């Protein structure tokens, strides 16, 4: 609430700066706007910019770090015995304090120390927020009025404003890079900690996965096992089933739509198939677990087969349905990029349509189609909701599609949802899996995008 109020005041001040900046510029040349270097509104923007932006930056920077600074100060004032707790225990205490501050449910009884800490937290927060408000407003007013005094007729206000806009544009475009870096660092950082506890080789080549570590060291199965091979096999099995469904159907529909269908048929059917791509994956997950999986289990039962209720087949089939439009629209693009002259060449030799497609168009489009399929594989590997809802949790090392298998993404979700202590190998394992997932899909994407780009350049 306070923050929003502050933002409101800041906006008002910027508007005022704009107004005064513009007026001052006009005043400086005695109303003869022709004598100004830039249009008057640029002087207004110039003043508004200097008024608003530095203050806003300070404000955002502060909001980003406020919580950690206050936490540090609060921890510093905690009783000796709590201050020396292990980091994760300390975190729990801190969480309790924050919950108490926010009026949420607290995990343990509220004692005086906790109450005192919470009071301290609130007090510090109030002081700091008040200081911040003052600082931000003073900065805005100072910078704004300083700029106003600098406005002169020959000043290049437009250039200054445009330079700033350019800087903003550059900052915006670097967010994409920052995102990638953020992903890399966040998964890498936690993974490194995981690999300190579990050797890389055990993780990559271990045949058993049971991340449930016991709380006390003397319990059974206390160590947990972090061999990810069953997850890889499960992921690949489900992706393979998905591709076996999606590639033939997607490719054949793309061929039909681009080579056989009338334009009218195409304009109706193509968007219909693409609806499949727009359906959220959670819907597919629900469809799979509620309709497809029971259907497969019952059918298997009739045939005398023992089908798990969370069979890899069900998850793979439904994932395949999801990927059909992906394959079909990518292939469609690629096939349409094959120059008409090649088709003409084949037809002129007396090839039938299917011969032209099979012997000329598909071979010519093959790199692009392979690129599309690689992208689809990357999507299948990274797909989460369908497998979370339709595949199993138990890490069975099997390639039998009728059995339940688990995947990398399923494990990430299971390890990270619900209550968790942040430093246990169990949660860190999720980040290691995430690193692997990111790495594999990144490689697939880079190769695929490169192949597709090269393919396009060939026919441009």
């Amino acid at each position, binding site marked *: 609430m306070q923050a929003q109020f502050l933002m409101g005041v800041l906006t008002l001040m910027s508007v005022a700066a704009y107004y005064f900046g513009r007026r001052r510029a006009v005043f400086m040349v005695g109303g003869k706007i022709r004598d100004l270097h830039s249009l008057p509104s640029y002087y207004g923007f110039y003043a508004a910019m200097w008024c608003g932006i530095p203050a806003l930056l300070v404000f955002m920077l502060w909001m980003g770090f406020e919580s950690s600074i206050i936490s540090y100060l609060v921890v510093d004032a905690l009783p000796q015995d709590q201050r020396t707790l292990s980091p994760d225990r300390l975190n729990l205490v801190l969480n309790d304090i924050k919950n108490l501050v926010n009026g949420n449910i607290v995990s343990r009884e509220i004692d005086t120390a906790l109450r005192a800490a919470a009071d301290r937290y609130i007090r510090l927060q109030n002081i700091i927020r008040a200081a911040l408000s003052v600082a931000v407003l003073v900065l805005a007013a100072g910078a704004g009025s300083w700029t106003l005094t600098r406005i002169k007729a020959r000043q290049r206000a437009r250039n200054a404003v445009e330079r700033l806009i350019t800087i903003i544009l550059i900052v915006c475009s670097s967010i994409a890079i920052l995102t990638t870096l953020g992903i890399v660092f966040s998964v890498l950082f936690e993974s490194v900690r995981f690999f300190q506890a579990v050797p890389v080789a055990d993780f990559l080549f271990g045949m058993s996965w049971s991340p449930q570590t016991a709380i006390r060291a003397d319990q059974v199965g206390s160590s947990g096992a972090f061999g990810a091979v069953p997850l890889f096999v499960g992921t690949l099995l489900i992706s393979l089933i998905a591709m076996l469904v999606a590639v033939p159907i997607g490719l054949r529909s793309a061929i039909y739509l681009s080579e056989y269908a009338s334009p009218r048929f195409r304009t109706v059917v193509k968007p219909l198939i693409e609806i499949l791509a727009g359906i959220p994956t959670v819907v597919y997950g629900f469809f799979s677990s509620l309709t497809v999986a029971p259907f497969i289990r019952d059918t298997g039962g009739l045939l005398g087969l023992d089908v798990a209720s969370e069979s890899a087949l069900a998850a793979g089939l439904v994932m395949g349905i999801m990927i059909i439009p992906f394959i079909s629209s990518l292939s469609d693009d690629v096939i349409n990029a094959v*120059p008409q002259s090649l088709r003409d060449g084949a037809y002129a030799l*007396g*090839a039938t349509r299917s011969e032209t497609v099979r012997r000329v168009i598909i071979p010519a489009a093959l790199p692009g189609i392979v690129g599309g399929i690689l992208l689809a594989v990357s999507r299948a590997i990274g797909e989460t909701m369908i497998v979370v809802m339709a595949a199993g949790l138990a890490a069975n090392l099997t390639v039998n599609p009728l059995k339940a298998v688990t995947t990398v993404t399923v494990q990430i979700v299971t390890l990270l949802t619900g209550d968790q202590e942040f430093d246990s190998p169990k949660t860190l394992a999720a980040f290691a899996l995430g690193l692997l997932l990111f790495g594999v899909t990144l490689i697939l994407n880079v190769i695929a995008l490169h192949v597709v780009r090269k393919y396009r350049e060939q026919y441009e």
Partner: protein
Amino acid sequence: MDSIVNPTNIPAVHTTSISDVVKDRSDVVSRENRSTVGETIVEDPRISCLDVNVYYGEKPAIRQVGLEIARNQVIAMIGPSGCGKSSFLRCLNRMNDTIPACQVTGKILMDGQDINGKGIDTVLLRAEVGMVFQKPNPFPKSIWENVAFGPRIHGLAQTKKELDEIVEKSLIQAGLWDEVKDRLNQPGTGLSGGQQQRLCIARAIAVNPEVILMDEPCSALDPIATAKIEELIDKLRLDYTICVVTHSMQQAARISQRTAFFHLGDLIEVGETKQIFTKPLHHLTEDYITGRFG
């Protein structure tokens, strides 16, 4: 120049050529609203076209073209761009079928059969009438695969050896063998422009067609490559009937025995090449060959 005034004043008709389609063929000359002057009919024609119209949607591309194409000759179609010469050429192997909005009317007779008729199969037709395009369009496959494509789809060879023979023969005929015999497995797209075009010719003759259509086969090539192709066309004439569309009058004069001049969708004049270039009957032809427009 009387003939311009009186278009029915056409040189002697070869009565010997009249076969079982005699009534249809007499149409070629007797139509009153025809604007074509010159010798539209020939003795023992390979292809006879009667009243051929091509429409793209509502728009006519060529109107009422009547023309006969003789065996073992090169006929050149000339005319300013957009005159319909390519559209006409594409009628002869029904390549216009591949353009959805395109409609062809009229009769095109080959061996006494109308190729636009019901019983005619485009696959068979195109096996008999090969085509070479303006831009060389080798398939993105090896040189060998390119030439073997036609024989393969038609099943013309039983064994790999037979196929090898066809490929070699076609490449020799196309004058490309010596240049590529050591790299038959390399992609056809890696050849130079002129070589690519000769590869396309080899690909077309590998099917052993009777007629070869060429749609401005040299327009994308340099002069040296052009000279080679022209030489090749002249040689191929002995075995094939060849129709060449060209925008270059010099080329038409060099390689063809007969020339047809198209203008704005009409076939204006047909005749011996020598006559067209020395004594054109129609003033439009004269204007065109003297470079007054084009």
